């Protein structure tokens, strides 16, 4: 496999950034990492993952769809779509990489979401294998091996070097483009690191969590479960879990009156919000219990039902860390299973 010495990594970043936008996870403050556009001098975070997921790159929180210019009594519609420029995201974890395939299922099926596709086509995802998973990690539950992270190019850290492995055509093109920085290296050390990481994965507190009791056929079993009342009781109805989630893909379309026109934009919505999917007749899910149930039923039942058994969760653990009242999918799964 081809590798680069870690001491030359930033040199490589400089070279990539000279040609296209490069985003890397970096520390905003101690304990809080985020993706930022790479500039010389910027350092990779030591955190396992970013606070917000990487989905923003393809599905940003707000995005303009169209402009309406209003002058007196005339309205002119303006198509503001532009071809996106190429960009590279470095350091995506296996869970977030998987989340893109989940989002793809939503946005790239017919009718294709041109805004999403535009970004997806132009973005190269370079993942990074995990070596030190956290207690909140449960990607294994969803069949993800964080030591083999996926994306267009997988990267592996053996402590001294970073190894590059192209997974897609786009990935191959990328590896080719940086070949001058790469050299062949042996992977013995890397195998060791991988083995150690897999051992840790098996010892994680949530290692035993399984999806076997969930799936598209479980609608009737869980929909009217009496557990929902207790589980949703403390829910504040905020959108933290949805907004840090790499797979939540619901959005709302809103108009903003600028005084001289309308900007029609879409923005992330949260099924936890009281006005989620509010329609002319009112709101289909009137209580927090229903809204809470919607989120977890969607991830654990409805999504697999519509997507060949694929669950709407990648076990990144962000919601476990960020929910203000520490209610999360793991607790829901365990409570529902307990019968």
């Amino acid at each position, binding site marked *: 496999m081809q590798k680069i010495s870690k001491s030359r990594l930033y040199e490589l970043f400089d070279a990539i950034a000279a040609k296209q936008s490069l985003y890397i996870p970096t520390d905003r403050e101690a304990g809080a990492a985020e993706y930022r556009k790479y500039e010389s001098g910027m350092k990779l975070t030591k955190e396992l993952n970013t606070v917000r997921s990487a989905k923003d790159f393809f599905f940003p929180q707000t995005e303009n769809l169209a402009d309406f210019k*209003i*002058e*007196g*009594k005339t309205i002119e519609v303006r198509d503001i779509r532009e071809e996106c420029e190429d960009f590279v995201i470095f350091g995506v974890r296996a869970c977030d990489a998987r989340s893109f395939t989940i989002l793809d299922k939503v946005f790239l099926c017919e009718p294709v979401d041109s805004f999403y596709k535009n970004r997806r086509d132009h973005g190269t995802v370079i993942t990074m294998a995990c070596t030190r998973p956290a207690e909140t990690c449960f990607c294994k539950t969803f069949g993800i091996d964080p030591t083999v992270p996926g994306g267009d190019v997988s990267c592996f850290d053996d402590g001294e070097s970073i190894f590059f492995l192209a997974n897609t055509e786009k990935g191959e093109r990328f590896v080719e483009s940086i070949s001058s920085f790469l050299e062949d290296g042996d992977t013995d050390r890397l195998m060791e690191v991988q083995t150690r990481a897999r051992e840790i994965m098996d010892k994680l507190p949530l290692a035993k969590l399984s999806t076997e009791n969930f799936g598209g056929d479980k609608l009737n079993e869980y929909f009217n479960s009496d557990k929902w009342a207790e589980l949703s009781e403390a829910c504040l109805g905020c959108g933290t879990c949805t907004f840090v989630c790499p797979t939540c893909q619901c959005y709302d379309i809103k108009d903003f*009156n*600028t*005084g*001289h026109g309308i900007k029609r934009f879409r923005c992330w919505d949260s099924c936890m919000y009281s006005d989620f999917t509010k329609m002319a007749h009112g*709101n289909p899910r*009137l*209580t927090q219990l229903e809204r809470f149930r919607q989120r977890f039923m969607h991830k654990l039942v409805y999504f697999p039902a519509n997507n060949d058994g694929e669950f709407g969760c990648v076990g990144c653990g962000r919601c476990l860390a960020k929910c203000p009242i520490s209610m999360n999918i793991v607790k829901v799964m365990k409570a529902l299973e307990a019968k």
Partner: protein
Amino acid sequence: MQRIGVFVCHCGTNIAATVDVKAVAEALGHEAGVVIAQDYQYMCSESGQELVKSAIREQKLTGVVICSCSPRMHENTFRKAAASAGLNPYLVEVANIREQCSWIHKDIATATEKAIILGKAAVAKVALNTPLTSMESPVVKRALVIGGGIAGIQTALDIAEAGFDVDIVEKNPTIGGKMAQIDKTFPTLDCAACILTPKMVEASQNERITIHSFSEVEDVKGFVGNFTVKIKKKARFVDETKCTGCGLCTEKCPMKKVPNEFNMGLDNRSAIYIPFAQAVPKVATIDPNYCMMLKTGKCGVCSKVCSAGAIDYKQQDTIIEQQYGAIVVATGFNPIKLDKYDEFAYNQCPDVVTSLELERLMNAAGPNGGTLLRPSDKTHPHTIVFVQCVGSRCDDEKGKPYCSKICCMYTAKHAMLIREKYPDTEVYVFYIDVRTPGKNFDEFYRRAVEQYNVHYIKGMVGKVTPKSDGKIDVQASDLLANEQLHINADMVVLAAAIEPDKTARPLATMLTTQMDTNDFFTEAHPKLRPVESATAGIFLSGACQGPKDIPETVAQGSAAAAKAIGLLCKNSITCNPCTAHSDELMCNGCSSCEKVCPYGAITYIDKEFRMPDRTTKIRRVASVNPAVCQGCGACTVACPSGAMDLSGFSNSQIMAEVDAICK
């Protein structure tokens, strides 16, 4: 779909000279929702209004915007026009392109641009207007007159005459006010007391008039047609119902060294006193600052001599509460204090007096029994100097910037009376201008000059110096002769400026009426509504609104009465429909709005709501009484959830205006 009509007024050239009205109409015609935009010479004229009315009918307008003068001027005119054409009057908005545009700007291009923006804001607002219907609120058929001078008496008599109950609140022990202190009146020189006291008696005998003398207004709540007023009856330590006014107590009272305010402190009265012989009510009052019994507990003479048993040393202030439909303010005036005018030696020399003091000195009931004597040595003065404009037309902090209006005439009167009674006296009047507009006024002044040989000198007195021989040196300019004069005078009379009574300011606050910078009450319109305040149901009578002589005061008193009667005649009045209302679904029942409501218009009710999960829930929600709400909007901001909104000035309407201006 909105169908808005825009009407742009030229106001002759008032607007059209600086605003291109055609361009305004043209621009606003392009606004969304506008179906007709016209300009016209005078929108407020009969034919202008007809234009609006026919457009409403023909174009089936849902909203009307008039770009014209201030809505304070003609909003009602256009609302009425709209109503007569079948459009709810509250679907009319006025864009103020005269007072707030054409009159203040000179450049046509920028003024036109601004007028268009103001018009757009009005269009944006009117698109969100909702039809409003006025509520009716009952009128309490009783009036309150605050102040018992000639203005208040006249007003009260006229209201009573029309058949309504009326209360007079007078802070002094008797009604009568300043006029009771005046000796003769100009320009007829008839005796003030002779024409005033019959009116005082008439007021006291009229069964519809209740006089609360020695009383003050403590608190005013409510609104037009339904004021609740707290009146404090100050303890006078004499039972008004028992006292016969025989005056024996005042004779026997051992404490006789009390400065007599009725005679401007020129002589003394007793601690128990009746201000003057014709006082109404003719009831004694004990001055607690001087009464030995009240101060030390030793005396009690008055109690012993009073055969009616009216003396009550234990009397307390009492508060009476009464509802009124209308309130007339008649708090009158006072001469200003002359402490700051050292140059006139008013505080140093007893023979330098104010004109009101001179009135008392010359009055038969005054300290000298009507003989004009110098206060210092009780000798007859031979040379008297009058100084006009003392503190009037003076725009520094010592005086008043306005003309006190009455001084020229009463000074002429004084000069004339002195010359007539004491022809051996030389009288000088120093003036800046002599102002005598008024029926028979200039003739009166000319008589003083021509017939009575009063020396009118154009120029001001610069310095008054009391001399060791008892004479007074008056140093002055004679501007026409271009010389500086020194007059060896015996007396100097200062025509002090007049100012509103000190009680007027706190009263204005209670009544929520406006005052000008000089503390005169501001009338609703300087020309067209001179006796009404801007606050509905509050009327203005006499000098509290501005300097006035007696005939003007009486005229205004009657005018205010007529306005009050007009209100009291109605069984109910139409309330302003621009009131607050709460959206129960959003109300938290937190009580914030109730805390900031100045009228107590908000109460809370427990209301049952159907919950989303089909259960019911009882929640506490605010409820606004639209008859009590005056529409200030304080509650709308106090409300965190935005449940409270104000009709006519809703959040969305104001934000639409903001947006239109900012875009």
